[in-house]
Every structure is written in structure tokens, then in C-alpha cells.
């Protein structure tokens, strides 16, 4: 069943993962999008503020997106997102760590400009296997309301 606006009341929505992030995929992402020594070079990373090799923050964001798509956005009548209100990188993601994503609905309201849709503002927190918060994000997503055109289309 396709999830619509009505399926996202404020409160805890779900926990997703765990997802292991390998050294190989960390280095591949950093090589392509964020080739700073702290994300690529073990020795240089030791001397950095993060004191060891860490994933690019944009890699962590992209993995969080994938976990959200697999977890619920992929079966929601989502029309996309206008942006991210705030994102905080709190601690480094290390090679081979296993991350878990907690998603809360912070706010859900009907769109004024497109009344057949609603704006669901999610708060996501990524934690590592030790339970340490690595990243927090607050971001709205536009979701079709029940009976809306996109919900029918997605079936």
C-alpha cells in the first residue's frame, strides 16, 4: 500500500538499518566527491581534527537518503523535497561501522499552495553501533494526500 500524508502523524515513525559502511565505499565516494586527505589518507587523517579516517559528510547524507528510500519513501506518494532546514555532523563515521537511522515526524501540515499535498517535516538521527549520534537532519518532504492524483497513479 502506498503511504500518503495521512500515514505520517507527528511522533516516532521508525528505525531503519543497521547498514554497514565499508572502507572501500567510503574511499570511493570521497575520491569522486570529497577528496580531502581526512577522508582518503589514513596518515593525514590521524593528524586531523577527526583523529582518523572518516567518511565524507555528504556520503553519510547520501546513505541516510538511501536508508529513507528503502525504509519508507520508496513506498510513499512522495513528490520530492524542497530542501533541508538544518543538518549537523556530530561525530565521524568510521570505516566498517554499522549505522542505524531513527526517523521522527516533527510536523505534518497540508500545503496551502497545493491542497492535494501535505508537507511532512522529518527529523532523522543516524547513530553508530555504539549508539553515538553521528548526524541529525531536519527536512521537509512533499507527500500526496489520500485520494490525490499521484497516490492513485502509484497505486
Amino acid at each position, binding site marked *: 500500500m502506498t503511504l500518503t500524508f495521512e500515514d505520517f502523524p507527528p511522533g516516532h515513525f521508525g528505525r531503519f538499518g543497521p547498514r554497514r559502511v565499508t572502507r572501500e565505499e567510503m574511499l570511493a*565516494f570521497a575520491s*569522486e*566527491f*570529497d*577528496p*580531502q*586527505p*581526512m577522508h582518503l589518507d589514513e596518515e*593525514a587523517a590521524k593528524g*586531523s*581534527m*577527526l583523529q582518523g579516517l*572518516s567518511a*565524507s*559528510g*555528504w*556520503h553519510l*547524507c*547520501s*546513505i541516510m*537518503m*538511501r536508508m529513507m*528510500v528503502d525504509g519508507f*519513501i*520508496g513506498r510513499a506518494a*512522495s*513528490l*520530492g*523535497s*524542497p*530542501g*533541508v*532546514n*538544518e*543538518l*549537523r*555532523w556530530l561525530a*565521524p563515521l568510521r570505516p566498517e561501522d554499522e549505522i542505524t537511522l531513527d526517523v521522527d515526524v516533527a510536523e505534518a501540515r497540508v500545503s496551502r499552495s497545493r491542497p492535494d499535498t501535505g508537507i511532512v517535516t522529518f527529523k532523522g538521527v543516524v547513530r553508530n553501533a555504539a549508539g553515538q549520534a553521528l548526524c541529525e537532519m531536519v527536512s521537509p518532504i*512533499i507527500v500526496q494526500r489520500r485520494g490525490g492524483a499521484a497516490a492513485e*497513479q502509484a497505486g
Partner: protein
Amino acid sequence: MRFFEDIEIGQRRELGSFTFTAELIKKFATQFDPQRFHLDEEEGRKSLFGGLAASGWHVGSVCMKLLVTDGQRLASEALARGEKVVAWGPSPGFRELRWIKPVLAGDTISFASEVESLRLSEKRPEWGILEARNTGTNQRGELVFSLLATAFVPRRNPEGITHMEPSSR
């Protein structure tokens, strides 16, 4: 890379441009954001985006890529002048990220970065904290992407500077 003391509010860097081909859009989306409008031309046309659209995280990651490339360019220019070069620190995050218009297959986005605020780190006296507005503009001159990014920037001589007033936007 530049030191904190070399940076002024309002300084703007053109970071270069990047063309989001259908192939690159689908490759990123397959890995990180497999929603139908990021994977298939026809699904993209039927969506609010009106065409095969890049994942917003792809656009943000490319902006990061060009920021790093620009930093490397600045560093090599500084080295060529015989100046000392330092690595910037990590970023504690960003605010106000806006995907203003879709980035569609074939679009070429020019990125820029403009310094909005500078302050000293209270917890880490050897570092300054910079906020910069990073933007992306398409080939028609339309603003498509904007975010307010934060980064730690090393100070040139933390011990020697004791009376510097933190400035804000």
C-alpha cells in the same frame, strides 16, 4: 588553503561548473536515491520535476567536489608563491539548504561560494568558524541550489592574536 585571517565577509569564489548527464544522474540515484523520477526519463516527465532530475544529494555532493577542487587550486597557487599551505578542518553542518529548481539531465550548473560570517571558535582557539553561502546556477541563469555551510578554518597564529573581535554578517 587560506588561513582564517585571509578571509573577509563578502569574498566570493566561482567554483566552476558541472554537467549532470542522464548517465551520471542515474548512476548516483541507483546507489543513493532510487526514486522513480531520478531513474527514468518518462517517470521524470510525469513528476513535478518535468524531466529526469538529479537527486538533491547528487547536486550537494557535486558542490562539495568543486569546493574541494577550488581549495586544491588555491593551495597550489599559494605553494607556487612560496606561502605556507594548511588543510581546512571538517564542517559541523549546514543550514537553509534549498533545492530551488530541478536539475534536469543535460543541465550545466555553475557553483559559487560567498563568505557570510566569520567568528572564532570558543572551544578550539586555533580555529575560526566560517559560514558561506554556496549556490548553483543553471545555464539559463536560474538559481537552482543554495545552502549556508559552516567550516572550521585554521588561524595563522592563534597565540599572537588575542584582541581580534569576532565579526558577524
